């Protein structure tokens, strides 16, 4: 499985979105998130965006007040994951217009939906912004 989880965490370390592609109990998730947040948020701009943790490699990127953290397998391409994060942010940007933490808080379902469009079973299945957003826009229109 390429991508194991996607997390969005704010500066204070509060989880804003968590999507796992393997089953972990709630306790395991909480512990994992705590460890990762502690490890990654302490790093500065001049340090690289890759952190090894347990048997994951964590690729993260910060956008304003929000950290995007993606846990991947060891042989996943780190730079591609960075591009994936960027694609996700751009997609949300296009949909929400200058996306911010609040957008994700109040539209968590949509954020999840975009992620679902992009990733299935930890495997990136869609990389075009238009394709990702088309079903969401269609659903918005009909509902």
């Amino acid at each position: 499985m390429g991508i194991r989880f996607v997390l969005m965490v704010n500066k204070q370390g509060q989880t804003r979105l968590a999507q796992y592609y393997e089953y972990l109990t709630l306790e395991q998730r909480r512990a994992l998130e705590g460890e990762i947040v502690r490890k990654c948020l302490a790093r500065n701009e001049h340090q690289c965006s890759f952190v090894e943790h347990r048997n994951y490699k964590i690729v993260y990127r910060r956008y304003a007040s929000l950290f995007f953290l993606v846990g991947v397998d060891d042989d996943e391409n780190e730079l591609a994951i960075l591009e994936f994060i960027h694609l996700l942010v751009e997609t949300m940007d296009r949909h929400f217009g200058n996306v911010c933490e609040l957008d994700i808080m109040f539209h968590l379902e949509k954020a999840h939906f975009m992620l679902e469009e992009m990733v299935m079973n930890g495997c990136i299945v869609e990389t075009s912004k238009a394709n990702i957003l088309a079903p969401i826009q269609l659903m918005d229109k009909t509902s």
Partner: protein
Amino acid sequence: MTSSSSSSSSNSIMDNLFQRTLEDLIKSSRLNFLPEHAFISNAMDEIRKEIKSTDPHTKSTALQKLSYLSSIHGIDMSFAAFHVVEVMSSSRFSHKKIGYGAASQSFHDSTPVILLITNQLRKDLKSSNLFEVSLALECLANAATLDLARDLTPEVFTLLSSSKVYVRKRAVGVVLRVFEKYPDAVRVCFKRLVENLESLDPPIVVAVVGVFCELASKDPRAYLPLAPEFYRILIDSKNNWVLIKVVKIFAKLAPLEPRLAKRIVEPVCDVMRRTGAKSLMFECVRTVVTSLSDHESAVKLAVEKIRELLVEQDPNLRYLGLQALSAVVGKHLWVVLENKEAVIKSLSDEDPNIKIESLRLVMAMVSESNVEEICRVLVNYALKSDPDFCNEILGSILETCSRNVYEIIVDFDWYVSLLGEMSRIPNCQKGEEIENQLIDIGLRVKDARLALVRVGRDLLIDPALLGNLYLHRILCAAAWVAGEYVEFASNPFQLMEALLQPRTNLLPPSIRAVYIHSAFKILIFCLDNYLMQNEGAASSYSNNMAGGDSVLVIGKKSTEALDLPNTEGQNYDQDEGFNPRNTNESSEDFPVGNNVDRVVTHESIVSVFNLIELVLGPLTANQDVEVLERARNVVAFVHLVKVEIFDDSVQNVDISKKKDAQVSAVIKLICNAFSMELGLVSISAQSRVAVPDGLVLKENLDDLQAICGDTELPSSCSFGVGGHHFDTTFDTSSSNLVKGEDSGPANESTSLLEHRKRHGLYYLPSEKNDIVSDNYPPANDPELSSNINDEAENLARLTEQSLLLKKKPNQMKPRPVVVKLDDGDVAPILVKKPEPRDDSLSGAVRDVLLGSETGPSSSRSNPSDKPSGKAKEKKKLSTDLPSETKEQLPDLENPNSRSKNRSHKKERRRRSPGNIVEEGEEHDQKGKKKSSRSHGKHKTRQRANSPLNSQTPVIPDFLL
């Protein structure tokens, strides 16, 4: 969409009116009226009530809120599992969506109600609304169990060839989970999955290549037959996402098949050269260095790219450059040597991850000839580094140097003193490892014992070290070494003092016990020597001990130095006077100096007795049983011996006549016991001991833990008295020993002098033991050793010579014997290999690809296996299988994999006639291989009829 607040379609308007929507919930959580847990428990009370409502809208809104709380605040939502099923089956899409979202989020293999959703999923998978299909697929992707995967395989199979790209793409995505849970699904779906590889719709290709990348990473061999398809994508695709995945697939396949590797080298290099995307370029580099490292030109190109990465501004790229270097280091060490400047510069990078990566690389460069220099540089780095990285460095030095029983160490004296030096680094937390190695080297390397004792002494006499918690384990080892190998000590009395110094009360009891025991050993050694001297004139000693020569010499030296404790203020010039005598250690010297020595010896023995009584006396009432027991033993022994030998009235008279023969015998006995060599114990030693009758080993000893759970055994207990004898001759060791001793006393005395100046109070014997000031300077001030240049370039220059693999000129000493047990005394390091997890999956894949149709008949007998064109063809082929006529028509369609591959090729040829060179080659190869192919066909045929499990797949010739 978050909640249709204005919707009024529900029947119970009241419910609706007063229900908080998700948005309300989030807003109120942001207002912070309540602490978080109170807010959550309020919300949960509300949700529990609402979710039982009969109104679908109220129910789904409650579920939506619950999902939110669960995913953000980690609330357990398993109690609502049945409500999730209810909401999923709602006819309204907006409700259904919430239900499916909740199911995807919270259902897993052990959710009981998951059995209830099969029919709902089947219905939705067949829905005409493609979003409903998508929801069901998403749910299947996240929560499929074996049952779900098995029951819904036919639907997924249908969707894999859906005319709607959107649905087909999602169906491809779900296949991974279905295969994982129910490998037999491969027999049904695999061909359709492969067909999707040829799709012209870019989204489908992205998805399907991703899926194959995942599948291939588990068991690459099964996917070798698909190499032509992947090759085509590698050549044709312009999508970087797809290319990365395809290159990744080839990284897995290439090592399995050299012909394939040869084939893809050029295209991969081509992509590497022309792409502007760093991610794709890096993927190619990684593939080349891991899987194509035999292809010189490709490696050269990759190294060029790595070099570019190493000098980038972006820390991400530098990190990856270093990672690529570590991947290449195994096969091409020269690459790392070529880039050593960048590597060493990265040692002082701002980013700890980069530092660790470069440390790994530096350690990879270590060899027998440069280990000393590299370690020196690294220890200097460790001194300046933050605690984490410092320990990272020390850990990797210790690990590298001790690998394969100190394989790369030639000069153990150097290594032992390095261990001592590392112990003194302020941030050192590797006490346990250093402890183990000190003892281990003591047991294994006879020639290193002299250096060990010297290093141990230096550690023991420094009172400052006792204050550092992390050093206690090292001090424990030092104390053990000092006691065990006391015959190598230049001054046992000094060791004794060090072991009994007041600050030892800072040690934990278990280590203190080792201290006391070592002091006991030293005492016995001194007494034995003392008695021996007295008998020396009569030369009745000669057969006393093994290795008597060296012991005699040492013993003599120790007597000479005996006056040290009592002559505090004196100038130590007289040491120089000792030196000549040390060097011409002839036993004839003995009677000459005897008279003088004996008086001094007597006094110093008495002073040692006094010291022991003073220090250990109070410990005979110690809380800890280990300390108490040992202290009592020693004190009682001293009482016994003192009365018998050193009667005050007979001080200067010839004692040898008066001494009790019994005491002398006791001392000899103990001394012999102590001088018995401790050997290594094999890890399998225990298992070789037969279990005696009546011994129940399986008995539950849980209560034992409560009794001795917090008692840590002193480390010396872990080494048994072994019957392991060394074959090395004593002559070499003793000569070495004498040589090493030359410079010993001089600098020893100065350091001792300094030490006493600094800690003069310690030597005032009447001082109350308990009051120990704690304001010692740090053991090893970084400032003191800051004569190293801070500039990274200078350090790079410093290592420059060391990294060149040149032989050190001053390596005169041959490597000493390092004892190893035959059956391996080190636990074998198990390289954990990822086990082929889903054998059944790859087995199924192989069956499908290699054309064996002998698998379980589920695929064919499946009722919903629609008679689509493809399926029909497959059936037809499988019925054709036993037909004899096929033998004569080798080029006809054939139900094995090759036929499939060829049919693909034909299609491709039809589709893309532009690729002329490519096809030409193909024809050539085909022509060449023809004979071997028809030969191979027989094999395949036979195999198809043979039982499934006995087959070893013959990979068909998939060269393109």
